[in-house]
């Protein structure tokens, strides 16, 4: 009962948020990034957290969704939702091929093989002509019903919906037979196998669900930004960011990826836009022309990826089970 109330309050806040902050495209833009990362990381968590299969190649599914949608839209101008569905199909095909190769492997091999598959996808997209190659795809205006797709609001609710669905699937899976089997596979694959669990079937099932959700997010991203190229949607960095978010929040927990995104996305934006330096200068704590001020204004801008790296290292060393793991331990 308490849990339902908690979720209801959370949902109400999430639904009402754009109405409260109103016309601030900048903040809604950040919230969209946040929801997207939370959903991506939650979708990864179904495979990585529950089945224990750490995919380092989820960018491939994200890219499959984004590319399929934008290619179909530019070529045939189909309904965006239909394009999205086709994205799921393409992502599922890639997932099945990946699954048939990588699920025979364990541990390091699985992670490395998933990178290799994602790289093959990335390089192929880069080399083919119909994908726009290195030039990427720039989309003109899109029409879906009478939604204003120049506004950010539809994308905010779109991302929120996918996140809600992903979390609902995760919550359902946890309690279902599939969920138990997946966790059994994660804990001890050989034992699970000797109990008669069809390991490859359940791993592929988890991968398919995860890939389909990831591809929907890719489609939404493509429709939202309206420009994609391989470095934006198929890069290894994206795959790593997804895992990092899950780990920092707590792998294998329902809310972990959401918590991870709540921490990392605003942090990345604060570091990128150098808010910290600005605040210190505006508050009069540091003079803009002093040495420290110059350093904050010029060098901190260069250093934000460095800071991100340091935070990653500290989190892995001191919060190996994520933020939620920390609370669990204290209890």
């Amino acid at each position, binding site marked *: 009962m308490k849990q339902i109330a908690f979720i209801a309050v959370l949902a109400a806040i999430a639904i009402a948020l754009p109405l409260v902050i109103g016309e*601030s*495209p*900048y903040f809604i*833009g*950040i919230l969209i*990034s946040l929801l997207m990362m939370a959903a991506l990381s939650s979708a990864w968590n179904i495979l990585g957290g529950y089945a224990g299969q750490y995919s380092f190649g989820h960018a491939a599914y994200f890219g499959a969704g984004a590319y399929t949608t934008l290619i179909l839209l530019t070529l045939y101008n189909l309904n965006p939702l239909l394009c999205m569905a086709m994205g799921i199909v393409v992502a599922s095909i890639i997932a099945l091929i990946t699954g048939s190769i990588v699920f025979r492997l364990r541990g390091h091999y699985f992670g490395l093989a998933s990178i290799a598959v994602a790289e093959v996808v990335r*390089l192929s997209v*880069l*080399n083919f002509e119909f994908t726009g*190659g*290195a*030039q*990427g795809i*720039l989309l*003109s205006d899109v029409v879906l019903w009478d939604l204003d797709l*120049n506004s950010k609001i539809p994308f905010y609710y779109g991302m929120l919906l996918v996140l809600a669905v992903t979390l609902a699937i995760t919550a359902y899976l946890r309690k279902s037979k599939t969920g138990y089997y997946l966790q059994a596979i994660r804990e001890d694959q050989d034992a699970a196998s000797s109990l008669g669990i069809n390991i490859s079937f359940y791993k592929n099932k988890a991968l398919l669900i995860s890939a389909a959700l990831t591809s929907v997010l890719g489609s939404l991203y493509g429709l939202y*930004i*309206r*420009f994609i*190229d391989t*470095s*934006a949607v198929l890069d290894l960095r994206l795959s790593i960011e997804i895992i990092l978010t899950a780990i920092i929040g707590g792998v294998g927990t329902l809310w972990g990826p959401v918590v991870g995104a709540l921490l990392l996305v605003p942090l990345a*934006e604060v570091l*990128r*836009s*150098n808010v910290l330096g600005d605040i210190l200068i505006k508050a009069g704590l540091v003079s803009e022309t002093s040495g420290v001020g110059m350093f904050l*204004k010029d060098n901190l*801008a*260069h250093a*934000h*990826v460095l800071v991100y790296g340091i935070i990653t290292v500290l989190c892995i060393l001191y919060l190996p089970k994520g933020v939620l793991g920390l609370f669990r331990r204290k209890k």
Partner: protein
Amino acid sequence: MKNKFVSIVAGALLAFPLLAQAAPLKIGFINSITGKEAQIGENLTNGATMAIEDLKAKGIQVELIKEDDGGDPKNALAAYEKLVTRDGVIGVVGPYTSGCANVVASRADQYQVPLLVPAAAKEEITMKGYKNVFRLNAPANVYSKVLMDAVKAYKPKTIAYVYAATDFGVSTVKTAQENALKMGLREVANEKYQQGQPDYRSSLSKVKAANPDLVFLVSYDADAILLMRQAKEIGLTPKAFLGAGAGYTTAQFSQQTEISNLVVSATQWTDDVNWTGAADFGRRYKAKYAKEPSYHAACAYEAMRIMVETASRNNTSANLRAALKAGSWNGIFGPVKFASYGGFTNQNNHSMLVQQIQSGKYETVYPAQFSKKKLVYPFKR
């Protein structure tokens, strides 16, 4: 008397809110400070910083808000939206990369805040009819056009392409192929490569086997040096090496005289061109940053100067847009005017330059009206 009094009061009343509003002029600058393009981003930062200092010396105060996009279009969009909705800038200079500029440009009309793109080459950016997007530099098609025009008189017959598998590389070669067709040049090899590889010998050997008159190269990083080293190693000697992209226009490249001598390259700017203040800018830049200014630095300098000077006289985005559209400038980047022609909107029809490295120095060799030296053709080791 009464009238005079009224007009003074009215004047004071009108002036008062203006005085109260005399908050500093705010301009945004989106750039790739980190990420893969950070090296070129730094040149842009230096150029923009010098422009702000020069304007300060002229009494124009501006608050420049710098944003990093790290080369990621999503970040560039966030940066633009932050600048226009939170920081209240009236104009934005940037972003550097074509991908980022593409995304930001497509949103500029929505926010009605003028965007001046200093150095991104993708043609599409100013081909969509956006009212608030202006571009200073010449787009990708001009790179190949000007290079081929420079060697046209020598009647080359065949051409080979070696280029980075990037947006700029692919776009430039596409337009080069169109120009080659018009000139009657036969394509004998086409080698696209991934950046960051250590070994291009096999690709270059293929080019050598095809024995082309012209080798058209597109690289915008130190891979230009790698390619030319390996070209020398395997003994590739066409009649001319035509280089497009920043890789062939760096001081570092020209200093490698053993491999770079007589390489021809297209550039947006040189410091020996006879545009007002170009030589002086070059000297001051060298004194300040202890290195040669790249054309990106000059692009950023001039874009920032035009943006701030115009904005200082037009304090709203709408006025700024009108002034950018109507105005014309003359400075280190030659005559600048944002015009509509050949499918472009608000595009400065910039005349690109062709330079050749002659005994370790870049010399402008084409078009004739901007150059002091003559092109050396054919290429020899």
